[in-house]
C-alpha cells in the first residue's frame, strides 16, 4: 500500500497518454463484455429449457413442412400428453424492417404446453372464438403500440386464396414471459384461419410441439415418434427442447468462435498499444528508476513497480469496461439477442484477461527496468 503513491505517480506522469490508453482498454473490455455475454448466453441457451417438451420437425430440413395430419399419429404415441401443430407466417408491419412472426397453431394446446407464457383465460377464450384473432407478445405490443381490439395488417410473401399477400389480424390478447422476455416477440394465431386462407402448402406445419409426462422417457418417445414416420415421404426428427434450440443456434453458424475471433483481434491490437505506452513510459523515466535503484530499491522491486503499474492500468480499465458492458447488456435483451444480466463468468474471464494483458504488455518494459544499470542510466547512456 505504501508504494501506491509512487505507482500512481508513474501512471499519471503523462496524463493524456494514460487517459487515451485507459479509454482504449475500456472500449475493448466493453466490446469483450457484451460479446462474451452474448456468447455465454448462447452457449447456455436452452439450459433452462423444459424437459417435458419435444419438437418434431422434418428430418430433411427444419424449413421443410410436415403434414398436419401427423398430429393424430403423434398424439397416439405412448407417453405423449398433448401436441400442438405450429406453422409460421413471417411478415412485416408497416415497414419492411419491422419483421413479425405469426405462429399458426391450436392456441389452447400451445399455451398449455408453454405454461411460462402468461395470458388471461378470457383472452385465450377470445382467440378461440375469433377466427382472425391473435394474442401478441408483450414486447412486440409495446414496440408497435398495439392494444387489444386493434386490427393489424401484416404484409407477407405468403399468397392468400384471394390473390393478395396482405393478412389482417385482430389483437384479442397480450401474453408475457417474465423469465424469457425474448419470447415475447411472437404472435399466436389460429391455425385454421391461416391454413385455410393460404394458397400454398395447405395442410402442412413446420413443427409439432409435444408435451410428455415423464422427461426420463423422452429418448424413447423421440425414437417412437420418428419410427412411426420412418421410410415415409416426410420423415421426422424429434428432439428435446434443449437440443432443438441449440440446433437452431447452430444454424446461425459458429457464433462463439466468431465472437472469440473478434475479441481476440481486439486484444491482440490492444497488447501492442498498451505495451507501447508502458515501454514509452519506462523509457522516459529511466533516470528516475535509476535514482530509485540508487537509494536502495532492488532490481526486483523496480520490476514489480512497473508490472504493478501495468496491472493497475489494465485491471482498472477492465473493471470500468466490464461495468459499462454490464450496464449496456440489458439492451441486448431488448433486442432479443441475449439475457438481461452479464454472466458472472464474463467478469471473471475479463479480469483474468486484464491480468494477462498487464503481464504481457508490462513484462518487456519491466525487464528493461530490471536490467537498468544505475551508473549508465544516471549518465544518460
Amino acid at each position, binding site marked *: 500500500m*505504501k*508504494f501506491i*503513491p*509512487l505507482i500512481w*505517480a*508513474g501512471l*499519471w*506522469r503523462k496524463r493524456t497518454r494514460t487517459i487515451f490508453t485507459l479509454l482504449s482498454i475500456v472500449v475493448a473490455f466493453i466490446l469483450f463484455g457484451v460479446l462474451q455475454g452474448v456468447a455465454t448466453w448462447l452457449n447456455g441457451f436452452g439450459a433452462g429449457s423444459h424437459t417435458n417438451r419435444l419438437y418434431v420437425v422434418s428430418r430433411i430440413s427444419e424449413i421443410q413442412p410436415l403434414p398436419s395430419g401427423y398430429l393424430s399419429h403423434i398424439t397416439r404415441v405412448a407417453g405423449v400428453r398433448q401436441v400442438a401443430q405450429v406453422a409460421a407466417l413471417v411478415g412485416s408491419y408497416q415497414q419492411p424492417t419491422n419483421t413479425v412472426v405469426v405462429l399458426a397453431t391450436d392456441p389452447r394446446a400451445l399455451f398449455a404446453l408453454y405454461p411460462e407464457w402468461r395470458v388471461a383465460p378470457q383472452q385465450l377464450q377470445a382467440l378461440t372464438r375469433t377466427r382472425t384473432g391473435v394474442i401478441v407478445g408483450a414486447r412486440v405490443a409495446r414496440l408497435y403500440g398495439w392494444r387489444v381490439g386493434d386490427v393489424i395488417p401484416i404484409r407477407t410473401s405468403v399468397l392468400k386464396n384471394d390473390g393478395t399477400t396482405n393478412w389482417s389480424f385482430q389483437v384479442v390478447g397480450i401474453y408475457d414471459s417474465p423469465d424469457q422476455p425474448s419470447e415475447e416477440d411472437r404472435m399466436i394465431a389460429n391455425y385454421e384461419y391461416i391454413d385455410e386462407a393460404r394458397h400454398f402448402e395447405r395442410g402442412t406445419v413446420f413443427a409439432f410441439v409435444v408435451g410428455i409426462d415423464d422427461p426420463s422417457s423422452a429418448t424413447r418417445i423421440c425414437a417412437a415418434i420418428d419410427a412411426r414416420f420412418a421410410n415415409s415421404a416426410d420423415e421426422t426428427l424429434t428432439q428435446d427442447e434443449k437440443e432443438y434450440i441449440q440446433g437452431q443456434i447452430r444454424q446461425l453458424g459458429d457464433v462463439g468462435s466468431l465472437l472469440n475471433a473478434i475479441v481476440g483481434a481486439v486484444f491482440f491490437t490492444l497488447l501492442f498499444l498498451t505495451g507501447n505506452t508502458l515501454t514509452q513510459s519506462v523509457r522516459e523515466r529511466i*533516470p*528516475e528508476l535509476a*535514482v*530509485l*535503484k*540508487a*537509494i*536502495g*530499491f*532492488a*532490481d*526486483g*522491486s523496480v520490476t514489480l513497480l512497473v508490472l504493478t503499474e501495468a496491472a493497475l492500468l489494465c485491471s482498472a480499465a477492465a473493471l470500468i469496461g466490464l461495468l459499462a458492458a454490464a450496464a449496456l447488456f440489458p439492451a441486448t435483451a431488448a433486442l432479443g439477442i441475449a439475457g438481461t444480466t452479464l454472466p458472472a463468468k464474463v467478469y471473471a474471464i475479463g479480469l483474468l484477461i486484464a491480468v494477462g494483458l498487464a503481464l504481457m504488455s508490462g513484462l518487456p518494459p519491466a525487464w528493461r527496468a530490471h536490467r537498468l544499470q*544505475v*551508473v549508465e542510466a*544516471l549518465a544518460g547512456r
Partner: protein
Amino acid sequence: MTAVVSLQKVAKHYVRGTQRVEVLQRLDLEVGSGEFLALMGPSGSGKTTLLNLIGGIDRADQGSVMVAGEALDKLGSRALARWRAAHVGFVFQFYNLMPMLSAYQNVELPLLLTNLTKAQRATNVRAALALVDMSERQAHRPAELSGGQQQRVAIARALVADPTLLVCDEPTGDLDRTMASQTLDLLEMVNRELGTTIVMVTHDPLAADRASRRLHLDKGRLCAAAAELAA
C-alpha cells in the same frame, strides 16, 4: 578515527566503442568517520566513478571496496541495494527528484524500504524537511521549487534514513553562487551537527574549501591534496 570508506588497490575501466579506458588505477583511499572529503579533478579523471564505487552503485574491476564495514565487492545485487538503503544517501547535480511526487513524498521514498509505520515515516520526513528548512514547501512538486530548494529536498531525501555516508556528485554544479553557498552551508551543518561522513565530488574550489579534506584525482590516480597542488 575509524575509516568509513576504505579502498585498496581499486581499478576500474570502461569500454567505449572499441577503446578501453582505464578510469581508476590501483587507487587507495581511506575516509574517516565524520570526515567531509572533497574530490576534485578535471573531467574524465575518475571522480564520479570513484564516488559511484563508494556509493555502491558501481563495482570495481579489482581491489577491495569496504564502506561502512561492508566489503561491497562481496555483496550480491539485492544485498547491495539493501546496503545502499541503510547506509548511503545520494545527492546528485541535477537533484533527480520524482517530478510527479511532492517534496514530502520524494523525501519519504527511502523510508518506503524500511519497516517504519506511516506515522514514524511522517515524523522522520518532517524532521528531514525541517532540517533543510523546507517544511513550508512540503506539498510542492519539484517543478514548483527553485533549483536551490530542489537540492534541499534532495538533501533531505538523502538524510531521511540517517545514512552513515552522504555521497554528493557536484551538488552545487547546477546552482547559482548564492544557492550554492546555502547548499554548502547545509552540507557543512549536516557534517558538523549530525556527524554524517560526506564524500563530495566538485569542480568548484570554493565548494571544496568547505570540506575538511580535499583530494585531487588525475587520470585515475589520487595525486595530492588540492591545497598542496595549488601551493
